[in-house]
């Protein structure tokens, strides 16, 4: 009984993705026929090839491989950047006593309350003034301040016994030596868990790349879907769109499935 209900739930939740796979494996004619096929066709590799080699106008004119590369670079830069600057600031806040410590802490905290959606125009202007439109820097740096990552590392560091620090000091280790030789190895699970979450966060960015990329060579795959759907005249090429959608969701889904435990840890620890 329980199993039955869960399986029904699973099927309902998986249904959209099943349809995506089906659409991505048929040709353009079959996809637009009613009734829609319920089983995958045999056009997978043909569509895959068409998608990667598409420079035709009908499909938007942006190579998918390039968009995926842009997405990958953006996701990696956001995840790495957030982790690096948050590790450093959490280290400073936990292990040093200095003037304005609390002030800095609160300033980082406030960024939680300013999602990009509420400061779209002025942030865009800042990036434009700095000449960072259509660059990887512009895509990533405005997003890499992270209150949640800083808090999470702060919690991790606070749970490390003080004796370690004392021992390191007696052995003559300076702060940066302590950071690299002791703190980093101890925090590696937290770092990995956070990396999984942030990679997904970075890969799935939409509004920000939409605003600051005007050159097609900087488009990301998630944005690419939108421009494929907008293909002006006539019906969109659904079989190619769905194939692209599949490519756009594959990397983060694979990350979640392969690193499930890290993912769950990252999700539950950053949110609380």
């Amino acid at each position, binding site marked *: 009984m329980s199993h039955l209900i869960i399986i029904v739930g699973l099927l309902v*939740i*998986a249904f959209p993705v099943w349809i995506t796979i089906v659409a991505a494996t048929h040709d353009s004619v079959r996809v637009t026929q009613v009734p829609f096929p319920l089983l995958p066709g045999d056009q997978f590799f043909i569509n895959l090839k068409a998608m990667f080699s598409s420079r035709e106008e009908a499909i938007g004119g942006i190579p998918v491989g390039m968009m995926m590369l842009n997405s990958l670079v953006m996701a990696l830069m956001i995840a790495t950047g957030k982790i690096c600057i948050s590790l450093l600031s959490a280290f400073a806040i936990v292990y040093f006593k200095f003037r304005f410590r609390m002030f800095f802490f609160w300033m980082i905290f406030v960024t939680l309350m300013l999602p990009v959606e509420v400061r779209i125009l002025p942030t865009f202007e800042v990036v434009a003034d700095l000449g960072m439109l259509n660059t990887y820097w512009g895509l990533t740096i405005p997003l890499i301040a992270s209150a949640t990552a800083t808090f999470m590392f702060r919690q991790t560091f606070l749970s490390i016994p003080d004796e370690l620090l004392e021992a390191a000091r007696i052995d003559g280790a300076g702060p940066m030596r302590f950071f690299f030789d002791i703190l980093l190895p101890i925090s590696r699970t937290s770092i990995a868990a956070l990396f999984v979450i942030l990679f997904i966060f970075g890969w799935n960015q939409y509004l920000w790349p939409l605003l600051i990329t005007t050159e097609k060579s900087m488009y990301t795959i998630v944005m690419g879907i939108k421009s494929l759907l907008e293909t002006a005249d006539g019906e969109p090429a659904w079989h190619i769109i769905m194939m692209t959608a599949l490519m756009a969701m594959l990397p983060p889904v694979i990350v*979640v499935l392969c690193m499930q435990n890290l993912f769950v840890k990252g999700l539950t620890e950053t949110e609380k």
Partner: protein
Amino acid sequence: MLKRVHFRSSWLPYALVAPQILVTLVFFMWPAGQSIYQSFLIEDAFGFSTEFVWFENYTYLLTDSLYFDTVFRTLFFSFSVAFLSLSIALLLAGFVDRIIRGAMFYRTMLIWPYAVAPVIAGALWVFMFDPTLGILTAMLDSFGWHWNHRLNGGEAMALVIIAATWKQISYNFLFLVAAMQAIPKSLIEAAALDGAGPLRRFRTIIFPLIMPTGFFLLVVNVVYAFFETFGIIHVVTGGGPAKATEILVYKAYSDGFIGLDLGGSAAQSTILMIGVVLLTVIQFRYVERQVDYSS
């Protein structure tokens, strides 16, 4: 708990926080300040002249019935998404919690939609509900329901709610299952021995004990529906038809970037900022209270 021992250095801690603080100042504080400043200005569409008008943008917004329509639409949208995704997740979590074999497999199968970008989720649903060739449209058609979200505002709203809910179920499910598994088994066994059936055990023990998590999720879901669903709406309906799915974030975006009403858009952003501050305060109040419980 704070550290009793610290490193001593006059400059190192500042250097360590510098990157984070720099990014915060340049890309968060300054733009937020600009946004507030701009909300007191009226600029003509070509940028030739700017006038400082105090609260005129706000009074204009707050007397505009269209703006209030958007506010209510946003609330309706957000609470529908929160309510639906929480209920479905609760149902699934309740059953997964009861079974022993295969729970891990089900968890795996239920959590991956979290990784799908909102825009992609939107694209999948818009394809299935496509008025001419969508598979679900064809099904509805056979019941005599001619679905067309491009013309019918109610159907457009339903579609964006479905897409946004679909994506959020995994997240809620994960937290609810964790909350349920934290309940001591002895409590549930004791109730079972006293003759309480599964439904009654759920209502009188499990449900009250997961309420704190439920409340936390409610706040998170509302924030999600307010801001992160931008992609879904942008790709599914573009705010239409006739603004039937235009939520606050979408309005701030389209008034600013497309309508070029910079002052009005900035005023909307500022109001949204106040909203986020309130929600964050509620969320942290709650987290603090929870910490008090456990200690």
